[in-house]
């Protein structure tokens, strides 16, 4: 999912940022504040515009260095400088007027305010924009006859196309074809363009001389703090882009209330963000679920038929805590969560005939590591652990793992086909993935809090087919 977010933003190297959740509650709140500030349209839009401009600056600098013609190279350097100073100044203006509540963005606002007033920036800005303006005023005339080209000053000669249009205006109809003659132009000036530019420089020597002096006079002018802000803002903006896309599809996000690890947890309307964000082959229909865990419950045991949404639910719970630790809005309508300092996952090896022993061993090695490292502030997601074991073994191992987790006070979501695990102690709570009762192939993907008895699907299907008592009364009443 994070790779997906980083796609198209490779230059920012975002994945390492997403792999670094906040270390403590204060850091979570710090990021949440920044996220809320950046999510406000005036701030977010300003930062997005700034990012686009900075990208252009980088492109101009990189491309400019490769140009052959000195006057083209120099001008691209000027263009980059203009884009840079204008974008920083524009960002300063936008942040000055914006309502900001976060410690992070306010500190940056103060920094940028200082920066644009600093003498080095002021001088850079004056020189670069001055040059740009001078170049902008240059218009020249070229005469081409056979193989000879002559450059001359432009003296208001009449636009030929306009005079043609004027002659035929009386025939004008409603339709207008826009003729476009796209000419593909290589990055470098060709010989004719270069030859003309050399002669334009002879006609207008002033700005070209100043440009040469400017290029040698200044060097790396992008401020390191500005560069870092540009990158870290993308951490939020890339994620917001996904949030916006899914909100448009009716899915809700919220900023979770994050408290200490052992507080009660409750989240409404959660969903698997990785699944929801998928666009190919078609955006999936998303069923949202609730997640509630109140003391003394520590272990949430999810049972139910295959393909019933159990794994998706477990992933959603894990994402919920991880994204909360990143300080980002989470895929839920509302959420109160305990901070998870570390999140462990144990996804069992799928059933396979070959090498049963090897797989079980592998499962257990990983499980051992988790049970060693996990603490009261951790969250453990177990998904069909020991699926490769025999039923007897799996029950025994599973119960043991659950007991150990309870003893250590670790929070866990345990997806399993073993109903018994849900009845171990008051610390375990049972959730069941429901299916339609008359057709076990129809999954509702609803995960509900109920005793794991493998039945009791009747209600869901009756509703689906409009066959509840009230439905039947209404439909037959015509």
């Amino acid at each position, binding site marked *: 999912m994070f790779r997906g977010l980083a796609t198209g933003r490779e230059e920012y190297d975002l994945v390492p940022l997403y792999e670094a959740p906040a270390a403590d509650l204060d850091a979570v709140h710090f990021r949440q504040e920044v996220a809320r500030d950046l999510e406000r349209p005036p701030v977010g839009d300003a930062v997005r515009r700034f990012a686009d401009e900075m990208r252009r600056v980088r492109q101009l600098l990189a491309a*400019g260095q490769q*140009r052959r013609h000195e006057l*083209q190279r*120099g*001008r691209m350097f000027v*263009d980059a400088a203009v884009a840079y100073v204008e974008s920083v100044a524009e960002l300063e203006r936008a942040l000055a007027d914006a309502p900001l509540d976060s410690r992070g963005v306010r500190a940056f606002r103060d920094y940028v305010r200082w920066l644009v007033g600093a003498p080095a920036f002021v001088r850079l800005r004056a020189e670069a924009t001055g040059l740009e303006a001078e*170049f*902008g005023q*240059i*218009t*020249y*005339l*070229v*005469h*081409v*006859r056979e*193989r*000879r*080209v*002559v*450059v*001359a*000053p*432009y003296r208001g*000669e*009449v*636009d*030929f*196309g*306009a*005079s*043609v*249009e004027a*002659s*035929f205006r*009386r*025939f*004008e*109809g*409603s*339709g207008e*074809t*826009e*003729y*476009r*003659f796209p*000419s593909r*132009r290589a990055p470098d*000036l*060709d*010989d*004719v*363009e270069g*030859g*003309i*530019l050399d*002669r*334009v420089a*002879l*006609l207008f020597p002033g700005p070209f001389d100043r440009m040469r002096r400017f290029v040698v006079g200044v060097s790396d002018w992008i401020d390191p703090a500005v560069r870092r802000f540009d990158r870290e803002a993308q951490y939020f903006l890339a994620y917001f882009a996904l949030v916006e896309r899914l909100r448009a599809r009716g899915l809700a996000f919220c900023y979770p209330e994050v408290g200490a690890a052992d507080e009660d947890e409750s989240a409404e309307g959660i969903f698997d963000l990785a699944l929801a964000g998928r666009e190919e082959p078609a955006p999936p229909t998303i069923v949202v679920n609730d997640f509630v865990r109140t003391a003394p419950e520590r272990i949430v045991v999810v049972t139910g038929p295959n393909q019933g949404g159990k794994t998706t639910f477990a992933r959603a719970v894990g994402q919920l805590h991880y994204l909360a630790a990143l300080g980002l809005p989470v895929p839920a309508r509302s959420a109160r969560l305990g901070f998870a300092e570390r999140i462990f996952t144990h996804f069992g090896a799928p059933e396979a005939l070959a090498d049963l022993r090897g797989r079980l061993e592998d499962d257990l090695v990983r499980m051992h590591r988790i049970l060693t490292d996990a603490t009261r502030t951790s969250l453990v997601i177990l998904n069909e652990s020991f699926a490769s074991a025999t039923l007897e073994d799996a029950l025994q191992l599973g119960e043991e793992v659950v007991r150990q987790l309870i003893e250590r006070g670790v929070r866990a979501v345990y997806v399993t086909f073993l109903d018994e695990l849900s009845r171990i102690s008051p610390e375990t709570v049972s959730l069941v993935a429901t299916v339609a009762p008359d057709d076990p192939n129809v999954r509702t993907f609803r995960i509900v809090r109920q005793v794991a008895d493998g039945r009791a699907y009747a209600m869901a299907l009756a509703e689906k087919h409009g066959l509840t008592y009230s439905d039947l009364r209404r439909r037959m009443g015509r």
Partner: protein
Amino acid sequence: MKVRLLFEDHDLDPASPLPPGAADLTLDLGLEAVFDAMAQGNAALRAVAERTVFRSLTDPAAIRRRLEALQDVREHAGVARELYDLALAMLAAERRYWSFGKSADSVLHRAVRLLEVYLEGLEALRRIARTSGEGFRSEAFRRFFRMVGDELGEAYLGELRAQRDELEFEDGVWISARLGAGNRGTEHVLRRPREVRVGWWRRRFPPRKTPLAFEIGERDESGLRSLSELRERGIASVAGALARSTEHLRGFFTCLSVDLGFFLGCLHLETALAAHGRALVSPEPVDPEARAADGAGLYDPGLALRSNAPVVANDLAADRKLLVVVTGANQGGKSTFLRAFGIAQLLMQAGMGVPAERFRASVAPAIATHFARGEDATMARGKLDDELRRMSQLVERLRPGALLLSNESFSSTNEREGSQLAAEVFRACRESGVRVVAVTHLYELACSAELRDSPDVLYLRAERTPDGQRTFRIREGDPLPTSFGADVYAAIFGAPPRARPA
């Protein structure tokens, strides 16, 4: 420079989509035969005929204007044809000059060639206007010929010719440009050299030796390519402008062919009907408020064109009526009657002659048909569902004064349900001032007390002689409780169906 023979204020786009409801009208009223006769196998004429007929005029004055223009075309068919042929010849030029590519140079080259052809066309048009324009009396044609005389003066045509010559660029091209990003030339615009060449431009060609000039070597292929690219960029502005100008000219000739094509199509229809011994009459359009619908000898031209047998004509006296209910025997001519009226109304509002001996009717802001159909072709919808959907679509277009022709609407369900649905729709129509002519066998609907007592409801019935023979005449008459299906059965089976058991 607008042709405007058909519409006073706009041109007809022969490629525009047909308005909503056109397909239903064509199918329900059997207009294919009418369009076939107008087009005489010519797809362009057919496109024009369809679009003109379905873009009904709603102003009686505009209808009279077109009827007068049509009269001019009848009286000067030769001149009309000459103008039409001229327009077609101009449009054919386009196919003669292929476009060799999308470059500015080739677009410009082609535009200059087309311009030459069009200039000749304009001169020919001027000649026709001068020699033959006098005899036309309609306001539309008089305006057209006056415009040709005013706008296409010798001075103007001379100016166009001079411009065409200049576009050969014998002295090279002058291009202005600005310095864009990266100091690259941008916003290239082709310029006309100053009329009075002063200073630097005094000499026809710049001096041989100046630091401001350079020359590309004869063998320098990439340099020559760059040079022609520069020329392209300069020419682009004028190529687009000239190509657009030739499009305007082509548009003018297109309009001419479209407008005259419609009138020639009208003559075709008249000729075709005459071959079957039928004639069209000039209708009398009146304001919608009058709610007039009065005619004699209305016949279905589609039927007339298909058969040589005598076609029954009917009269209609439905002035001030909001609902006309037509009942009576199956196969008794009800649908034919409905079609004849619908076509007359539609052709009147196209400014054409109508299939009747006399026709005077209020113009309708919209004309819609709702005819019972066979199974929906897609089978995706049920029949009633399809009927309701069509009704819902056409209701979108109905406004006070509009005309709805209903033929056995809601017959795809049982009589009680059908009557209720129809009663709701027709009641809403009447109360909104929408006029309805409904052929129906829904006795319950037809005989509702509410309708029977209404002065704005007219009952017509397909005539049947006492011995069961149909005359195909529709006369005033109250609905009868049976539809004579047994008669049709008997005609086909050779014996009447047995009586139903009690």
